[in-house]
């Protein structure tokens, strides 16, 4: 979320162009009403302005970066912020794999868990593997029919609730068994090797240490290490930054010139946790809480943007026939992917979906989202539309929706209340 604010006053702090701005929040770039608690609230931020730009003055609009927005949000809502939901709160059931598919079994050993972000449109797989990057590469390649390469990193400390597949991975790497009720904590991220970012040397290895943090799992007395490889790919280097709890960003991986597009995590605000830049696609979990799991998908041209925004769909295809999502006390909604073949996305695509209290939210991206949503949902479903921008729209489907279909894509999803 990028908040927009009006400058109430500006005072120059130093000769580099750093100003202290007193600002009043007025909205956001991505939606009309970002947060009623925030609208109209005043706060101060430090912001550097180019010396060739007109100096900031009262009445000017500033669009805060995501990091600034987060900082402002935390400052204004200090003490009012709800507790961070546990990462595993809305974990999709992983494990209902197609046993005759080697790929899925293979990937099951690599996938730690698959999360559905509450109120958001994305499915975020967590991946760890003892096999290293080739497995990840295979995963991503499979996920999008070989259209992109990727890297992955777990960026900072935080809670971590492993799922069934986690234990397979842990067991595989350590040879020890663990109960599935364990909670763990990512104790730290150690950068084992950082190689200068050039076209010819692009490999950064990280070691992650998982520390058992649950009394019920005392038997797990080991700290398996998962070696991750992060692969910035040449010309379009992928980079990751972590955002710590104070809102500061850290270019962990790339000491120089971290490409900012690599962490446009809020590209689809509110419900997406999915971002795109000029040539990247980033899915981020729990940045709000500081750090989290970040995926960077390298993209080769804008023509692929739509295709690659679909990372969540192949995940569904890969990781199970059924995904049960729930949020609070709302009705459970089961989704069944009927067909994904021929998924064509030139005209737009289904970005994601998530359960809400009275139905299903479907987010759509494309040049004409209103038409796409109409295609997705169909007027007969009594869809309430909300456009977040000219290219993104959300449809709210009623409870009794029986199916979603995108004619151009060949995608059909059967939905039923369960």
């Amino acid at each position, binding site marked *: 979320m990028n908040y927009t604010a009006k400058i109430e006053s500006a005072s120059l702090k130093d000769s580099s162009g750093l100003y202290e701005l007193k600002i009043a929040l007025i909205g956001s770039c991505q939606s009309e009403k970002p947060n009623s608690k925030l609208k109209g609230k005043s706060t101060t931020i430090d912001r550097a302005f180019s010396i060739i730009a007109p100096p900031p003055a009262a009445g000017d609009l*500033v669009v805060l970066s995501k990091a600034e927005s987060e900082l402002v949000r935390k400052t204004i809502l200090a003490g009012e912020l709800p507790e961070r939901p546990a990462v595993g709160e809305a974990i999709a059931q992983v494990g209902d794999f197609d046993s005759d598919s080697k790929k899925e079994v293979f990937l099951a050993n690599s996938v730690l868990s698959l999360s559905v972000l509450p109120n958001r449109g994305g499915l975020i797989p967590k991946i760890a593997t003892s096999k290293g*990057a080739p497995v990840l590469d295979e995963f991503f390649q499979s996920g999008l029919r070989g259209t992109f390469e990727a890297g992955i990193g777990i960026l900072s400390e935080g809670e971590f609730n492993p799922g069934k597949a986690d234990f397979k991975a842990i067991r595989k790497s350590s040879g020890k068994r663990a109960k599935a009720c364990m909670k763990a904590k990512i104790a730290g991220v150690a950068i084992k090797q950082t190689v200068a970012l050039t076209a010819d040397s692009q490999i950064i290895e990280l070691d992650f240490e998982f520390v058992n943090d649950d009394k019920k799992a005392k038997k797990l007395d080991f700290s398996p290490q998962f070696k991750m490889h992060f692969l910035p790919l*040449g010309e379009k280097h992928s980079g990751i930054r972590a955002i710590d709890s104070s809102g500061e960003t850290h270019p962990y991986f790339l000491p120089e010139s971290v490409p900012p*597009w690599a962490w446009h995590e809020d590209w689809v605000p509110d419900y997406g946790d999915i971002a795109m830049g000029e040539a990247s696609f980033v899915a981020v979990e729990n940045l709000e809480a500081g750090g989290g799991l970040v995926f960077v998908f390298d993209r080769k041209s804008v023509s692929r943007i739509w295709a690659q925004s679909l990372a969540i769909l192949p995940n569904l295809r890969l990781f199970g026939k059924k995904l049960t999502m729930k949020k609070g006390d709302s009705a459970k909604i089961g989704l069944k992917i009927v067909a994904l073949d021929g998924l064509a996305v030139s005209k737009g695509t289904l970005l994601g979906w998530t359960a809400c209290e009275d139905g299903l939210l479907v987010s759509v991206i494309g040049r004409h989202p209103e038409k796409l949503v109409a295609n997705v949902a169909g007027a007969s479903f009594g869809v309430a539309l909300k456009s977040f921008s000219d290219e993104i729209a959300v449809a709210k489907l009623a409870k009794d929706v029986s199916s979603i279909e995108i004619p151009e894509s060949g995608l059909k999803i059967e939905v039923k209340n369960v």
Partner: protein
Amino acid sequence: MSEIKNITAGIDWEIPLVDKSSGRSVGKNKIAELVEKAREKAPELEIGQDLDLIEVRIGMARSYRELSTNTQKAFDISGEIAAKMKAVLVPMGYREADLNPAGGHIHFGSIESFHQAATLYNRLMPYVPAFVALSASSPSLDGRFKDTRIRLDACHCSQPMSPLDPELGRESWGTDVCIKYPYKATLELRACDSQPAPRMMADIAALYVGVCAYLLKTGDKPLEPNVVEYGLNRLNACLDGLQASFNLGGTKIAAAEVVENYLIPWALEGLGAFGAPEDGFEIFKLMAKKRICPADWMRAIAGRIDDPWSFIGEMTRVYSRGGSFIEWLGSAEALKTLESRGEKALLLSSIGLNTPLESAHQSLPCPRAYTEKLLDELASEGLLVKRFGKKNEILLDRADLLERFQL
């Protein structure tokens, strides 16, 4: 070559219209509203809309004076209406926040035959990258590209050209230069980014029109279109703007020198009775001398901003406060010409593991066969491995990565 009888010019100057209070596009409905009001005020200008952009047009200009006056008028009218709607015209080539490219398209007329159009199309080809370098106003926030719009082929709306057979060819749409004949009597240059000021839009239009007129009437042996040179020059222009180095006819030359030594003198000669800017393209001369394009100004404004929404927000603020590239240019420090990138290095840097062949093609705007020849050479040098995927699609692996992961 047949000399043009009636020189005419037109522009389709695409400009993002940004809501002052939110930093995002005002949306198609408000743009349509603006266009309707603008057309009421000045129907002859034919101001229009292209998807999520306002398209400043001027009808058909028969002189430089008409071109510059009407461009300014159309911009002013649009700006005034926008201000009443609490919106700002933010001319820049690419709005990274929502991936929206904005071009400064220029029409040269009046074409009298297809043969004339196709011949001119071929003659223009070597010089198109110089227009890209000069007009670049779409910096990528990662600092890599000065012309992101063309780097992305303007979302398929300005793709690399191929030579056209004047006898056997047909017009097509969506390349850097498009033949509009016979349904319009123009040859359209689509490779220029949206320009940061009406004066610059009018001048770059005049520059293109003058160059076209010159190339039509010159008796000199034209430079043969070399698709590989053109593709690499185009890519280097996207990367470095007016700091780029080109190869033209096998000779190394700075992009800025192409502008200064060829385009400007040719245009001044070609424009003839149409008329040229009184200062003889002084702004472009200064830009060439300093190796500076509008993207450099935008990048300087962006400063430490690395968020696309913040960037468009800041550009909106700058434009609404009267920020001017032309004013800044006078005091800006000159930049240096940069070496062109090696084609193999560029190609190899786009390849990882399981990279589809298509990705490699997209990274190099050269003829397919040429790119594949380079790939074969890289393979024979042991730097990459070419293989078939599950659906017999060709996949590429960088050899060092394969080794790294012991695959």
